[in-house]
């Protein structure tokens, strides 16, 4: 054997072709699929930017000839939801007020729960976790009536705290599962070292474990923000008339019409309601996929 220095050695034969029939087919399929899923969004967007005269012509895919943002303004501040005509803005702020405490509370509970179940190995941890997981598989509808009775007995029914508690409860199984699996991947030695160093339950959690949890915190936030923002049935049932979330208000706008149906306003209102989850998807693409994978594969 001798070693070469200088000169170059070419691989033999022709380089394999990059573009094959299979590749072209693959791209054609991907493109069609993307168009198929983008089409509704496109129709919503262009319709919301057209005046009603243009919509009546029926070219739903066409670009607006006379671009107008009137429908968006109307949807935000003056569209009628039932008797009140304040637009969807009321619902937007209601949703924000529900969202922020619900997300924080459910993630905090899930993280502590997952930490206790995976690292402290308390007696019966697996049984507790099993019961909690079962909760994730029971349909919401089963809980609605009992919960309504419990909350009205306690006297918090139809209030902001009521809907926040409900979101925290329903988020608990998923959040616990997510954090428990993440913490199960942390080397046990790290936890032992912290115990030898004198950390207690809360010090180890706050000073060692939580600073390591950033990826899971991001994923959990994404899941909870989109989930809670898109919720309809829980908000309708538990929030009370004063705190109805945006999704419920949107439904009221679309269904309370006098005379001609204002498609452009409906579409604009829908777009407004979808803005928060859309923004979350766009900003956090990589993390979002990771979150779905974490929820789906582990368990």
């Amino acid at each position, binding site marked *: 054997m001798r070693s070469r220095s200088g000169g170059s050695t070419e691989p033999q034969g022709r380089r394999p072709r990059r573009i094959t029939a299979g590749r072209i087919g693959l791209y054609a399929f991907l493109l069609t699929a993307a168009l198929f899923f983008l089409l509704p969004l496109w129709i919503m967007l262009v319709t919301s930017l057209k005046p009603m005269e243009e919509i009546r012509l029926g070219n739903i895919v066409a670009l607006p000839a006379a671009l107008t943002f009137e429908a968006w303004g109307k949807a935000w501040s003056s569209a009628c939801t039932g008797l009140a005509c304040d637009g969807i803005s009321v619902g937007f702020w209601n949703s924000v007020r529900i969202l922020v405490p619900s997300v924080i509370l459910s993630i905090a509970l899930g993280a502590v729960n997952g930490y206790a179940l995976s690292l402290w190995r308390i007696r019966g941890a697996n049984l507790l976790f099993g019961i909690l997981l079962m909760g994730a598989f029971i349909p919401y509808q089963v809980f609605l009536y009992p919960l309504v009775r419990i909350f009205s007995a306690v006297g918090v029914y139809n209030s902001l705290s009521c809907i926040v508690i409900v979101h925290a409860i329903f988020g608990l199984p998923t959040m616990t599962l997510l954090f428990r699996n993440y913490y199960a991947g942390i080397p046990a030695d790290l936890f032992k070292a912290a115990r*030898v160093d004198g*950390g207690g339950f809360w*010090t180890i959690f706050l000073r060692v474990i939580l600073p390591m949890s950033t990826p899971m915190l991001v994923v959990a936030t994404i899941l909870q923000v989109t989930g809670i923002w898109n919720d309809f049935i829980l908000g309708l049932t538990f929030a009370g008339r004063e705190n109805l979330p945006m999704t419920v208000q949107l439904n009221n706008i679309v269904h309370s019409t006098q005379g001609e149906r204002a498609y452009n306003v409906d579409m604009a209102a829908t777009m407004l309601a979808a803005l928060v989850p859309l923004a979350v998807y766009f900003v956090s693409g990589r993390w979002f996929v990771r979150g779905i994978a974490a929820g789906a594969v582990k368990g």
Partner: protein
Amino acid sequence: MTAVSVRDVSIAFGMLRVFDGLSLDIEEGEFVVLLGPSGCGKSTLLNAIAGLLDVSAGQIWIDGRNVTWDEPKDRGIAMVFQSYALYPRMSVRENMSFGLRMARTPKAEIDRRVTQAADLLQITHLLDRRPDQLSGGQRQRVAIGRALVRDAGVFLFDEPLSNLDAKLRNELRVEIKRLHARLGKATMIYVTHDQVEAMTLADRIVVMKEQKVQQIGSPAEIYGRPSNLFVAGFIGSPQMNFVRGRLEAEGNRLAFAAGRHRLPLDAYAFSDRPEPGREVVLGVRPEHVEPGASGVWPGFTIDIVEPMGADTVVWCSDGTETIQVRTSGTRRVAPGEGLSLGLDAAQVSLFAADTGERL
């Protein structure tokens, strides 16, 4: 004075009993190595001493106190782990001072101890780095530093060098030994499956297998007078040679016989003189076999030669027995050569074939 005393300890995981009444006394300032293959329970024992694992029966005493139910932090111990276990979101300085901060030590005292430990381990220039900016060897230095800072009387090491490459392992091994000498009165309990670490570091080695202590003794005792076949085979590289045979009487003298090979046992120190006719296994270390022309066991041929630099391991065989011989690295030997083997009865070990115990 006894620094650590394990008294009649039993440990059970659910229905599975791992230890049943195990006892061990460790003197102050002693370096004790728990040695055994994986799954022998050595780490379990260490975790029980640290208080990271509850015992189901028995007591653990550290420094004259019964600490059986004390939290790890109250036992006066420090621990170093195989995976380093550095807190990833803290700087080296914060890692080292975490325990002291938990104990609300005054800031000046923390600084003094961290500086001192960092000096001792030559990691002063790393103090402001994060663990992920360090190499494996540096990480383990920091982990040792974190243990030093605690000012504990007893240091527990759980396979601290197993994740490092061979060169670093040798360096840090020497450093740990130097550290033990410098700290003077510090007791160290060190778990490993590496016999070289055990032999080089230990004042006493505890050889374990399947949750049972096989032998406790100085490295020289363990190596020279292994108490059973397992210890004999586990310690030493290349491995001890084993030859099956029987004891035969020659008048009132005993001799070992295997096929046509014989070895008079006048010089062998029996712990309890056995009766002739007993089935035995003769164990002899490769360096205690003298290859030559006039040995007591003739008729061997060299099969394979393994040069290792300083010395050469020669595998030779007579058709039924294969014997490894360690000889000087400068000696010229070639496969196919015939030779006879010289053995000294004072240097061999004899084990009962049925129980495996030393005779």
